[in-house]
């Protein structure tokens, strides 16, 4: 037992002088970074307290009471406390559709997808906005926190998917006008930063709409995000289309299928299976990019953390570090989880290819 671990150490860490030097250097870096962080986050951290007083004083580490005192704001923003059950119900309904969708063995994927992208968004919008007789309406100004982050990310991906598929088909079309229009559209949105798109949506879009139509800030940002991500989605789908052999299209045409039948029944089902990991990766990128909406005045999760940080009641020297480390942890859990799922799907999809 001891000899095998020594062998392992010699082979993996101390195989020659260069490796030994590297090992010592890395150990030194870890030694100077990890213990201080653990000390800050756990040992010297403040765990209990009712206000900033508990976290003041020299040598104090992270101020965790700040996080759990504001947890509700981080999740719901200023959404009225007595109506938060509606958000929870909408969230659970979504989860009930998402979990079977993600497990490959569960059948009825078609109906499941239909529920997720058509039925559930409508139910969720009604529940969260309360825009029906009998429900108390909640203005979008009051929405915030993780709620807004998820709304922006999910709307972005759901709205961009059909648009992205059409653009991808357009870019591979044999009709030159359609092809150039799609290409110009895609390359334009891919060439500009999301922040300028959001500025455009929030200050320029109202000028292009007739006086009668008034979009609130959240809706304007959603339009911008959907257009922006549809261009990225189109490129992902195009990759999948290119992976479908030409013979498939020719065979479908030989059978007398029309263009839309060929695409809908033969090409897209194969292409979209290939790009599931790509779509998940796009979603991860979009999820991280949702933080940008705080620059145009929405309060997403990160924006809400910043709002609570500016609260005089909680202003402490370690407050900023605590809030941002906590937010980073939350985003990391979401993104890392999704990237693991994407890797899992990639392995599963490649199984058929490996001989």
């Amino acid at each position: 037992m001891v000899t095998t671990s020594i062998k392992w150490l010699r082979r993996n860490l101390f195989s020659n002088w260069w490796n030994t030097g590297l090992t010592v250097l890395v150990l030194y870096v870890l030694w100077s970074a990890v213990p201080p962080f653990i000390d800050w986050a756990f040992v010297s951290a403040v765990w209990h307290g009712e206000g900033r007083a508990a976290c003041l004083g020299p040598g104090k580490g992270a101020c965790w009471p700040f996080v759990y005192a504001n947890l509700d704001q981080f999740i719901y923003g200023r959404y009225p406390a007595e109506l938060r059950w509606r958000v929870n119900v909408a969230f659970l309904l979504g989860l009930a559709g998402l979990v079977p969708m993600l497990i490959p063995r569960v059948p009825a994927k078609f109906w499941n997808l239909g529920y997720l992208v058509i039925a559930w968004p409508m139910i969720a919008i009604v529940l969260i906005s309360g825009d029906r007789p009998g429900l108390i309406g909640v203005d979008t100004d009051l929405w915030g926190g993780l709620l807004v982050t998820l709304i922006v990310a999910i709307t972005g991906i759901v709205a961009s998917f059909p648009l992205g598929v059409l653009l991808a088909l357009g870019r591979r079309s044999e009709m030159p006008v359609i092809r150039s229009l799609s290409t110009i559209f895609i390359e334009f949105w891919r060439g500009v930063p999301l922040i300028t798109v959001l500025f455009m949506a929030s200050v320029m879009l109202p000028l292009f709409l007739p006086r009668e139509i008034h979009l609130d800030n959240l809706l304007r940002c959603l339009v911008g995000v959907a257009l922006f991500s549809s261009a990225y989605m189109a490129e992902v789908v195009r990759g999948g289309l290119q992976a479908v052999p030409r013979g498939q299209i020719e065979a479908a045409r030989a059978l007398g299928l029309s263009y839309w039948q060929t695409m809908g029944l033969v090409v897209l089902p194969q292409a979209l299976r290939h790009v599931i990991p790509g779509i998940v990766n796009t979603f991860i990128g979009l999820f991280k990019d949702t933080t940008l909406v705080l620059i145009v005045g929405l309060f997403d999760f990160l924006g809400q953390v910043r709002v609570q940080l500016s609260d005089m009641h909680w202003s402490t020297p370690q407050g900023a570090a605590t809030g941002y480390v906590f937010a980073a942890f939350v985003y990391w859990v979401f993104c890392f989880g999704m990237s693991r799922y994407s890797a899992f799907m990639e392995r599963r999809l490649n199984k058929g290819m490996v001989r």
Partner: protein
Amino acid sequence: MAGGKQATAKRAMRWSWNDPHLRALIWQIGALAIVVVTLWYLAATAHENLSRQHIATGFGFLQNTAGFGIVQSLIPYSEEASYGRAFLVGLCNTLLVAALGTVLAVALGFVVGIARLSSNWLVAKLAAAYVETLRNIPLLLQLFFWYFAILQPLPSPRESLTLLPGVFLSNRGIVMPGIGLTGTSLAFFATLIVAVLAALYIARRARARLLATGQRFPAVIVNTVIIIGLPALVWLVGGAPFTLQHAEMGKFDFTGGWRLLPEFLALLLGLTLYTAAFIAEIVRAGIQSVGHGQTEAAHALGLSNGQTLRLVVIPQALRVIIPPLTSQILNLTKNSSLAVAIGYPDLVSVFAGTVLNQTGQAIEVIAITMGVYLVISLATSFAMNLYNARVAIVER
């Protein structure tokens, strides 16, 4: 267009929905009509809204006096300068942080990517942890962390930390000695340029001779001597080509020397660390794409480890690396617009922020800003495509 015209010229078009050419023509005319009508409708609505709200149009505002200060500018700028000048200042700041960020991110990305493949378990795991942590946290959050949680709580200039002799770190950024020019500066830099050109020429000749005759010429040693030696000779003969101007501690802050603003540092740090995580993955995938047989064959030919890496693995890996690396460099450039969130005066912050607020000419300002990013994107893609064409496989 040409294909369709040729086909229709060959045989008469049937006026039937079953004729694919006619169908294609109708589809395209329809699509074009929808786009034109939509654009026309948007333009008409915008015109009506603008005249109703009495918002000025046109680009005349670029000549108006800006009247606001900018904390960092590479070109002369004052509050009396025009909006056009402010635009240039913002553009230069964007290009500065994007260029520095690209160089640093590519360098760090290559180191981390190679480290992930290291046979040293600890090094590989540390690199993997770096990549998985940094790329799964939003860049904006990282910028906030560096700026608000790390740089702002630093001590004031009076109690600043000394990084190196003459280099101080405080909550006002990094202050370091500035470089002043002297009488020999011109001669020094001219010699340096001549030396580099000569070295390039020698390297080309040496390679041509190697390919033609098989004889080696020690170009690396000779060139090192030329590049260091010639400017050094000028230094010895004419005296130092520049002077160091040390920063002095004033009443509250340093004066003199060169200063890197904390906003700039946070943005550069955030962009570099974030993008390097993505580049590391690209580099790793690129190196792994070179088959093991290549390495074995190179070893069988008697090449050393370093030669194998330099002459066999990297040239092939670059083909896989360059296209995704290009898009990461573009991402870095576009992400530099997050500067607006921490107050670094980049293009978006100065122009789409302050100038837009002052003039209210949203359409013109946003159009110019987006246009600049589009041009930068296209130019970078073009340059990288040229380089890619050089390293791509030459097929018969």
